């Protein structure tokens, strides 16, 4: 785990509230954007983000530093909880389906300039990496990651075998990681 992540986690475990502020400033917007992308609902997305930070603060031991980066863990936690909520709402037929796009959008103009410059670079690189993914891998990743469909559900939707779904996800994830510079991995 990167040294910075480890120190952040140690300070949280020690009850240092100032570090939570720093962590929120560095990743809060990304977490919210991801949750909003999945849920399409601002209040729901805010609740998910709030809950994620509450989990980290109240149960820091739920994160294991031996298993990876704190920021990656938070992103996956928010994604999983957002998908949980999305599926729960679908079961209650409380919402219309959300059309999910993986296109990389221009950076929001309201974000401050300094942040937007580094975000814009990151987004461009990510966008380029995603666009290089074969369409078949991209569509499976989209259905799995952003819509939370299980492998059998994806297989049924696309009319392919379960094994094909799994391998496309795996290959997509690998390609994505390998096509990015070290700094963004």
């Amino acid at each position, binding site marked *: 785990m990167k040294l910075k992540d480890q120190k952040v986690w140690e300070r949280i475990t020690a009850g240092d509230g100032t570090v*939570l502020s720093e962590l*929120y400033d560095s990743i809060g917007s990304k977490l919210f954007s991801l949750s909003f992308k999945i849920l399409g609902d*601002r209040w729901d997305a*805010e609740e998910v*983000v709030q809950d994620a930070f509450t989990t980290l603060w109240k149960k820091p031991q739920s994160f294991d530093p031996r298993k990876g980066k704190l920021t990656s863990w938070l992103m996956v936690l928010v994604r*999983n909880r957002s998908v949980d909520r999305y599926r729960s709402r679908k079961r209650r037929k409380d919402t219309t389906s959300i059309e999910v796009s993986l296109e990389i959008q221009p950076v929001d103009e309201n974000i401050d300039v300094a942040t937007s410059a580094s975000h814009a670079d990151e987004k461009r690189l990510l966008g380029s990496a995603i666009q290089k993914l074969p369409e078949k891998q991209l569509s499976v990743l989209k259905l799995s990651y952003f819509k939370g469909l299980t492998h059998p559900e994806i297989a049924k939707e696309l009319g392919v075998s379960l094994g094909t779904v799994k391998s496309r996800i795996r290959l997509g*994830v690998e390609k*994505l990681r390998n096509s990015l510079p070290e700094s963004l991995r």
Partner: protein
Amino acid sequence: MLELEQKLIDYSLGILSSKESREVESLIAKDKQVAKLFSGVQDSFCLLGNSARTTKVSDDLKSRVMEICESPKKKSLGFLDKLLPVSPYLPNSRYAGGGGSVDLSDLGNGDLKDKINRLYESMLVLRSLVSGTSSAAEGDLSELCKSAESISLNVPAHNSICSNGVSAVPHEEAIQSFLRTQLTSLPSMGYFLSKIHGKGGSSSDVRRLFYLCRDQMKIMRASFGDLDGDLLADDEKMRLHGAGLLKTKWWGAQHSYYSRAGKVKCGYFFEGPVTERCVEFAEYDSNLYSLANLLGSRSENGEFQIDLDNANVPGCVLATLTATTSSKKHTVLKNTFNKKHNREILNEDNYLVHLVKSSVSRAFKLSTSCEAFSKKYIGCERTGNQTILWFVWPSVLDSQGGGEATTSSPLQ
């Protein structure tokens, strides 16, 4: 190796069974290479997550997150511990809400039925204007502002309930149902609608309106069974509601009962379920709003604190609301709780206490609503310069950690 990587991907996506998840966790814990591979998988998903379009976050989300650090620990109730029921009567079959529901026709022939229908229709309009997908949620309050005035016409003025014919309604339960829809979450909603109409509103006010509107609609459906049958059917399904849901809603909120708005602080909230169905949650909410209205309007600075604990009263959840008050205001409030027959005295404060007494006596199958007070299932006491209001509610049995219908992610 491919199979292992696939398993790690599936684990990260949260689609493995509990048994498979535990196996993966064990592998990760034992083998550093596996841990490294898992870390890589998580990083890849993190990158994917980062590709989401950057969306502006509300300014107050950070302050709500930061308040987490200030979460107070469980506080000692001091003298209150000695007053609370030691062995409350817990009926064999737990009360899960729905009691006290009536039909609109039970309101008689006056215009009260029309009032309820108009109010619910305006809530349907408001809901779309303040939902998380609305333009108001994004910061554009223009549409909401246009509609705010007409919606607020359905909010009763202070102390107007007594003169609108409610006392002529023949059925006690119908009166209570009507009062619940007028006196609990609605007054606070009126405050925020006025604020927005006067162009003084913000996105945090929109968020607050969203929760108030949602609560108001649930309370109305739980009060009048034929108001919206389809949604009521969904409200009656078994679905646990955790204390966390209440905390999310009340945390950092502002509340008003025909007075200046004050900040609500969330003290200690236990982790676990509070109610089993939306109709029960609506009734629980109604009780909280009633006490919040009574206390908030008497608080020296408009502020009050809510705490929820399941360890003070055996088999029950205790909700306490605390605020700094003057001794004069406390005395008036205490006298209201002391009244034996709140129902008969046409006064909104009396009605609010009566609603909570009736609800709690229903939950514990008490013979009369007065017993709820005499046996201390609901109360009003003072310590120092603070007034404490409370009510007790039967705990959900065989709880599994609360929360509303979510599956536990392997990363928790």
